[in-house]
């Protein structure tokens, strides 16, 4: 009874993520606050994990980055949140975790701790000390495959990461992936070939950096 009343007060069943997001996109401020409550644990976990790979993060850092991720999802009329499509199979939390991970890695890559800096001159100092090698060290990557994986995580869009996961982590057949993502098998194959090419390029690039660093 209590849960029915709660649903009635909210004007819809927010236990369904698609309905919850639809209410937010329609401009329901209270639903947006509840969406923050819903997504924050996922974002905190993913941010903490990425930051912990490079050292011991503080809670303030985690919350600052989490705030940035939420802003990223909501800004420009929820532009990024709108790209989540439940029919493609990824849970809302999975999608948001990917956005969070990509955002934090990109932020570390650019040398920005967070978009919340008040002193714009700090930017320059941070950028001077934030090359790719620094990033790899920050993320504690020891071998080439780890480095390639980290680079891919920062470069691929959430949809591309879902494709990567389906093809190479879950090892689903191309036809199944094509059907799930609403693509032709040829398109999935072409995407997969492009990814291999990119991975090859990353492998060469990172190997050269290692040689340069060791000399």
């Amino acid at each position, binding site marked *: 009874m209590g849960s029915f009343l709660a649903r009635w007060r909210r004007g819809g069943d927010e236990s369904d993520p698609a309905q919850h997001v639809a209410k937010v996109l329609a401009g329901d401020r209270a639903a947006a606050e509840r969406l923050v409550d819903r997504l924050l644990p996922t974002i*905190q976990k993913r941010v903490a994990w990425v930051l*912990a790979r490079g050292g011991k993060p503080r809670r303030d850092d*985690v919350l600052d980055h989490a705030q940035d991720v939420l802003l990223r999802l909501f800004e420009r009329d929820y532009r990024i949140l709108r790209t989540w499509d439940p029919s493609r199979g990824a849970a809302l939390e999975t999608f948001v975790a990917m956005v969070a991970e990509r955002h934090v890695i990109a932020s570390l890559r650019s040398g920005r701790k967070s978009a*919340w800096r008040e*002193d714009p001159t700090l*930017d320059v100092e941070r950028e001077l000390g934030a090359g790719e090698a620094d990033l790899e060290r920050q993320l504690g990557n020891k071998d080439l495959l780890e480095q390639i994986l980290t680079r891919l995580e920062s470069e691929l869009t959430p949809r591309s990461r879902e494709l990567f996961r389906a093809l*190479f982590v879950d090892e689903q057949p191309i036809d199944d992936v094509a059907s799930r993502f609403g693509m032709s098998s040829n398109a999935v194959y072409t995407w997969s070939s492009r990814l291999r090419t*990119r991975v090859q390029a990353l492998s060469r690039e990172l190997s050269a950096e290692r040689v340069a660093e060791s000399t």
Partner: protein
Amino acid sequence: MSGDEMHELGERARRREAEREAYLASDEAAELIAPPSAEERQRLLRAVLPPARADAHGARRSPWTWAVGGLAFAAATAAVVVLSLPTPALPSYSVRVDSIGYSEVRGEPAPTDGSAKVAVGMAFEVVLQPAESFRGALAARVVIDTEGRVAPLAWSPELASTGAVRFRGEIGREVMLPLGRSRLGFVVGAPSAVEAWTPGAGDDPGRAVLWLAVEVVP
């Protein structure tokens, strides 16, 4: 990289997921992922949701004030700032590209002439960074110079309370750039000085004009 190596990459991704789960179950992570206090939650909500409904008391001010409220809102805000504050001097600005470039994605050497090489469909982010914080009324716009012909470019800026300005969008969608080489001119400064700028206009202490060469490939 062979199929086996792609398989190994997938295997590595699986292992990383297992490590992540183990870390998140550890005592070390417990404090970091604990639910926010009431104060932390309020601060987050004020920062990420539209300010019209937010309680401003004790809020942590967001540095990025989205320029999505329309011209009327911007004009009203500027008018309030102009009426209530003396006009501070505009600091010097630098321009930088914050998005990943085409060359990085393709593993090619980056352009050495300071230009940006981008492809249709890529995210493109340009930041105008002040040498020091600037709290005065600010506006920005972009023009495109194609073979000496300068025209306005429809690309909305995001203004930060620090005076930084950010332009973001996807090439071919929010940012309509022609294929090939062109120059983008970013005009930033006091709203009236930005509005008054024309390609032949001289220097004005109230504005800065920064140029960025770009090459767009299909």
